[in-house]
């Protein structure tokens, strides 16, 4: 048996907790392949899920981190497309078999390793998700809901108290449930991930506290932030209303209840389903809600459910959505007698079933959270711990631990005499930093790291567990200063060691300034939930706490402003007042004239009610309107009246800082309206579109031959190094970094400037892409004792931020940094239904986990509806102006250098300049490498493109022989999807340019560069020869309290790689090492990028000071 399998199977913790690295270190390629083969065999036969999962993650890591280092350039091979197809369709077992077959016949290669790594990784997570799903369904009290297949079988009945209509007011009794949110002191390094708790129950421990909140300076005092309401109505529908999201809908069919993305009521729908009102077993039934309701509530009656959050934005890290779900489920379960008490607090048994249902609801809604998240349903400070599965549990024999943890609420006797809770309230400044990030990727990383048990991270986890014990001890004694020390140590130690991405430049900066300002009186930083940047805690000496809270609220906004364009902020930071909630979820039954919804509810629904003739309203609504009228006449009337009027009449925008309008921006940037109209017409008529991007299917595209490329992955001969070094020293080279794009994929459409994103800590602090590129330039320039001019190309979207950033940092001490301002801009359009369908239905798409896929399909149906209703190919203007415009592709960025006179200026300053190194902002390994430059000079080509061997994630084109000539073919232009998989090399976009040869190809000379008319004409001529691609990009629209919607929008672009298609331009292609050409396109790449040593490699290329 292989040692790795022994590690997996061992009962001895000292063996089981060994790291993969320790075993792999020193193994040869052959031994590692043998180990992988044994592990693969093991995972096929092993019945125990957890053993299988660990084997899968070992396999993924071996193929991702350990095998590639042992491969030489001779290990070359293609990734089979059918395997990729299986992978996208979630047929992971089949995908692995296809990839292994290829590996057996063609030998191991970097590409196959990347494909196997991905397949094993995904199979591992799928196996885990399946198990959690089975466990959630298997919880006693949840199972029956999956057996109910027809409304006639519905076993729930509404409590009779809710049907007693008040004879005087005609009002139906109303339950109001108030629920706290949870704030975690320590989660023992994300140990509340379901899988961790189930595999390692003794390590799964959280201490959290339920809190009420108020926005400092806005609310008079903290209140439970979540309120939900329920009553019986005289219409046979389920009426759902989210007061915060401003949406109300009447659900009339079961199908509609399962359509989560149709509106913003997905969470309420998930609650209705998870509470068993519309049991999940009914999904797919075409029955009417009224049939179900007549059994549940009585004929002709329905249920109204309303949610209201006290303006707590997303990303608060206080588990607002899980606790809202808990609150909704609790109120629905009270109403149907599934929870014993109709009013008051919940019993422990009730809280547990509510929490189990909330977990189910999150799964149904396609989201996910940790098991501590429904902590707001419990009162006060509590310890939540994983626990061993016993024979009575459905998990017994499957996992060591149970899905549901055990809660222990700390009583007053267990806390210090002088109340701990007051001391915490006196010291903690609770804030929302304004960032609303998705914590999902972090939780995946934690799971992976836990399974691999690498030494550093495992030690960090043990330390986090010790810190947990110390935090609990400090809570018991009420030593808040100690809590501050511990939470800071936790954050700066184990949490950052396990997941470096749990912090960011913004948070680090805030901690720095707190330390500078308050020294010893700043007692510590407290990371809440999965990551920092949104909800966070700062602990101060009570003597300065009030002052510090005011100071911090100003400073946070200041720091945010300085990073606004670099990090995705969803809102301005705020400080909260808070108090510890000792009730957990609490309900009251309101009757008679008190049974009235909150004012904001009426502000939302009243306009619609007033539009409907009174006689058409059901009696319940009529008496409700009379009640509202009498409330307005009463004491509290003025607030209600104001709120109603605000809902009825349009409000005047009183924004102080006048924003630039879209027409102004378009005007300013020389937007070409004529070209835009032509594109629109072409789009509508189907002349251009996603399908038409493709080259004709008759085009012969084959892989290049060895003689078509120059392989420079090995050592470069001295002759070329000397040639290149001399050119650098003589000032013949400059660097062009393309920074006009906003990195849609990087921030998922948030529209910040990717170049400025401080994405990783180098030399002690977070550094941006731009800083890394300058640091590489500095190093080469110092080595050659010269100056290498560095140009960043910008667009309307990035020019201002980059200019300001460089000015603030004095160009990082670099002598020649230039900005080439973009001269082209496009206006985004609503996509055509044809393009949306082409993208989603005709191209191979990554299928998601079953429930998430359902949600996605519902979103897509809604988006197609949106495109149709908003007018296909019409201008996309319903967003911030900068989110409506787009840069028009990187091809324009080189001509822009000519058009804006920058090249002319640099050549005038440095007449010896002959060569340019052009690269993307995210190609971090691109340097002015003397050997490569030497080859470029020696080859005499106008353009030398760098290519790398293809990994699975490298989609988007490649180097191909088209009609016998090597050229780069963009992914968008590939005639069929599998074409790309037959190409060995991927385009890294890094290009060595011979300035004079390029000018010649455009019909220009150096001396004509100051003739703008001539330059414009030359550029236009060349532009006409470049193909135009239509693409769909995601763009975020922010609204409400840090809510975000993502829309696909159409835009067009011309791409630099197509220069290789022009016959008169002499091109050559260099094969370079992977690390040089690898691009960081999405933030999910960061973790493997750091773990496989690339981050250290990049660091070694840089000179930081």
């Amino acid at each position, binding site marked *: 048996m292989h040692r790795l399998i022994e590690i997996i199977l061992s009962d001895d913790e000292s063996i089981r907790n060994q790291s993969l690295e320790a075993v792999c270190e020193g193994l040869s390629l052959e031994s590692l392949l043998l180990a992988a083969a044994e592990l693969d065999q093991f995972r096929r036969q092993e019945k125990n899920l957890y053993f299988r999962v660990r084997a899968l993650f070992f396999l993924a890591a071996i193929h991702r981190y350990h095998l590639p280092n042992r491969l030489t350039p001779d290990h070359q091979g293609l990734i089979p497309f059918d395997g990729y197809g299986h992978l996208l369709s979630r047929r992971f077992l089949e995908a692995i078999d296809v990839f292994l077959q290829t590996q057996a016949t063609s030998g191991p290669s970097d590409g196959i390793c990347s494909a196997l790594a991905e397949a094993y990784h995904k199979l591992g997570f799928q196996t885990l998700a399946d198990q959690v799903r089975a466990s959630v369904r298997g919880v006693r009290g949840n199972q029956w809901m999956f057996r109910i297949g027809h409304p006639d079988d519905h*076993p729930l009945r509404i409590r009779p108290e809710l049907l007693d209509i008040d004879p005087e007011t005609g009002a139906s009794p109303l339950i109001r449930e108030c629920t706290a949110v949870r704030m975690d002191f320590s989660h023992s390094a994300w140990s509340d991930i379901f899988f961790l708790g189930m595999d390692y129950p003794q390590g799964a421990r959280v201490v959290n506290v339920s809190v009420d909140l108020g926005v400092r300076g806005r609310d008079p005092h903290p209140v439970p932030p979540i309120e939900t309401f329920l009553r019986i109505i005289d219409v046979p529908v389920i009426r759902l209303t989210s007061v915060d999201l401003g949406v109300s809908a009447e659900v009339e069919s079961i199908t509609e209840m399962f359509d989560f993305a149709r509106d913003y009521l997905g969470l309420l729908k998930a609650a209705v389903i998870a509470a068993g009102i519309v049991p999940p077993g009914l999904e797919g039934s075409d029955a009417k809600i009224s049939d179900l309701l007549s059994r549940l509530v009585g004929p002709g009656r329905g249920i109204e459910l309303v949610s209201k959050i006290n303006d707590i934005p997303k990303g608060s890290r206080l588990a607002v959505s899980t606790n809202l779900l808990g609150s909704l489920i609790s109120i629905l379960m009270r109403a149907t007698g599934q929870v014993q008490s109709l009013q008051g607090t919940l019993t422990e048994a009730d809280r547990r079933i509510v929490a189990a249902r909330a977990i189910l609801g999150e799964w149904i809604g396609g989201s996910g959270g940790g098991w501590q998240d429904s902590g707001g349903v419990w009162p006060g400070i509590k310890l939540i711990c994983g626990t061993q599965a016993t024979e009575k549990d459905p998990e017994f024999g499957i996992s060591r631990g149970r899905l549901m943890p055990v809660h222990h609420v700390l009583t007053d006797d267990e806390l210090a005499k002088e109340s701990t809770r007051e001391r915490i309230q006196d010291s903690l400044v609770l804030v929302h930093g304004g960032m609303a990030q998705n914590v999902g990727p972090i939780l995946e990383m934690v799971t992976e790291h836990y399974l691999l048990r690498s030494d550093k991270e495992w030690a960090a986890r043990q330390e986090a567990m010790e810190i947990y014990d110390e935090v609990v001890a400090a809570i018991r004694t009420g030593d808040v200063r100690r809590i501050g020390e511990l939470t800071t140590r936790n954050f700066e130690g184990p949490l950052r060691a396990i997941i470096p991405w749990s912090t960011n430049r913004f948070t680090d900066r805030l901690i720095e300034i707190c330390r500078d300002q308050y020294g010893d009186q700043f007692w510590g930083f407290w990371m809440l939930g999965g990551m920092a940047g949104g909800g966070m805690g700062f602990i101060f000496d009570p003597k300065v706490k009030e002052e510090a809270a005011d100071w911090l609220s100003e400073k946070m906004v200041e720091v945010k402003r300085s990073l606004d364009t670099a990090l995705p902020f969803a809102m301005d930071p705020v400080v909260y007042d808070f108090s510890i909630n000792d009730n957990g979820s609490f309900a009251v039954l309101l009757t008679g004239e008190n049974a009235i919804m909150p004012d904001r509810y009426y502000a939302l629904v009243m306009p619609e009610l007033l539009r409907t003739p009174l006689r058409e309203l059901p009696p319940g609504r009529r008496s409700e309107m009379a009640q509202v009228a009498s409330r307005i006449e009463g004491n509290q009337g003025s607030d209600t009246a104001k709120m109603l009027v605000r809902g009825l009449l349009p409000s005047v925008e009183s924004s102080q800082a006048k924003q630039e309008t879209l027409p102004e921006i378009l005007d300013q940037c020389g937007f070409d309206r004529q070209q835009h109209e032509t594109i629109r017409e072409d789009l509508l008529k189907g002349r251009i579109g996603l399908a038409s991007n493709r080259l004709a299917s008759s085009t012969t595209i084959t892989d290049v031959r060895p003689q078509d490329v120059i392989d420079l992955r090995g050592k470069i001969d001295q002759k070329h190094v000397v040639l290149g070094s001399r050119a650098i020293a003589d000032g013949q080279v400059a660097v062009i970094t393309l920074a006009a794009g906003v990195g849609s994929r990087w921030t998922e459409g948030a529209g910040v400037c990717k170049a400025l994103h401080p994405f990783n800590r180098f030399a002690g602090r977070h550094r941006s892409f731009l800083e890394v590129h300058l640091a590489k330039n500095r190093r080469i320039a110092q080595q050659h004792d010269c100056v290498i001019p560095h140009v960043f190309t910008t667009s309307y979207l990035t020019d201002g931020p980059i200019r300001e950033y460089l000015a603030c940092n004095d160009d990082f001490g670099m002598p020649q940094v230039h900005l080439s301002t973009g001269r082209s801009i496009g206006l985004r359009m609503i996509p055509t239904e044809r393009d949306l369908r082409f993208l989603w239905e005709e191209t191979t798409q990554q299928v998601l986990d079953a429930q998430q896929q359902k949600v996605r399909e519902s979103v897509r149906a809604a988006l197609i509806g949106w495109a149709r209703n908003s007018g296909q190919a019409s201008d996309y203007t319903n967003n911030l102006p900068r989110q409506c415009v787009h840069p028009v592709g990187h091809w324009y960025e080189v001509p822009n250098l000519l058009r804006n006179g920058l090249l002319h200026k640099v050549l005038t300053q440095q007449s010896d300049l002959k060569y340019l190194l052009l690269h993307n902002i995210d190609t971090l390994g691109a340097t002015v490498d003397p050997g490569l430059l030497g080859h470029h000079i020696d080859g005499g080509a106008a353009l030398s493109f760098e290519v790398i061997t293809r990994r699975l994630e490298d989609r988007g084109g490649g180097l191909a022989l088209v009609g016998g000539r090597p050229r780069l073919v963009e992914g968008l232009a590939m005639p069929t999807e599998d074409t790309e998989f037959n190409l060995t090399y991927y385009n890294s976009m890094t290009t060595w340019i011979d300035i004079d040869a390029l000018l010649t190809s455009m019909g220009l000379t150096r001396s004509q560069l100051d003739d703008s008319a001539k330059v414009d004409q030359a550029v236009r001529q060349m532009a006409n020869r470049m193909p135009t691609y239509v693409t769909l990009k995601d763009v975020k629209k922010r609204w409400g309290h840090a809510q975000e919607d993502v829309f696909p929008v159409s835009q067009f672009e011309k791409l630099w790689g197509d220069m290789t298609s022009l016959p008169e331009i002499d091109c050559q292609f260099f094969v370079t090492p992977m690390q040089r050409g690898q691009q960081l396109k999405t933030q999910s790449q960061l973790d493997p990028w750091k773990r496989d040593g690339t981050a250290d490699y990049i660091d070694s290329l840089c000179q930081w000071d």
Partner: protein
Amino acid sequence: MQVRKAVITAAAPRQNRLPLQQLVDSSGEDKTALQLIVDETAAAGIEEICLVIRPEDQQAYELAAGPHLAAIQFVHQPEPLGYADAIHRAADFVANDAFLHLVGDHLYVSSTGVPCAKQLVDVAKEYKCSVSAVQSTRESMLPYFGVVSGPRLPQSQQPKSQRLYEIEHVIEKPTPTLAEQELVTPGLRSGHYLGFFGMHVLTADVMSLISDLTRGDLASGDLASTSNGNKPCLSDAVAALPSRGRYLAHQIEGTRYNLGVKYGLLKAQLAIGLSGRDRDEILVGIMDLLSNRVEGQNVECTA
């Protein structure tokens, strides 16, 4: 233990007229539902019957009792104070004896030849304790029944043909959520529970439990608070029985018919008819009815 007394409750609003309905018994004789119920008790060896009714119904009941009138003692429940209260009205009648209890709106058809009540009384005599008749009940029917749970008696302690359970929990009309957590009984199909059959043999202890309940003396640990309505019901009282001594559930071999539900009377009549002398005549009648049904009649299918 001897069981010679029976208490039949028929005072609940909307159910008080059901025992007066006219049916045909398995031998083809016209009888009221009340007579059929009394026949059932007589077959179990009951000698004295206490009928709990509303005062204004007494005359009708006397007429409906037919030849059994002499064995029946009428007790009144003037106000609808609930099921438990109705039983408690018979406290004096019961005195210190064990008694058979049936509800007046149900009829029973045995599937073994031994009447249902007799099956139950035999078990009570053998084990000398309170026994409730139960049947496997699907979870969709939970809103209508009291439900019990507990382990099945080991095979060594009961004849092979019997299905006896040691009751640990009793909850009136539980939600499926609570049922799944507290009331799962090994041996039943998933989603099925032991629901009351509407027939019990109870010791006189139950009367004192009902008194405690109406005075509010029963602790919440006795699960008394689990019934949703305000008026105490029998389940609330018998929930405390397991803490006072042995309390068994007997899965009856037979079927009960609730006359109070939609088509309840019709179904009960068909079941009784099909189990007796006129079986063929009824079957022919049904076939005739089906074959002559006018097609295209507006029959809405909800399935």
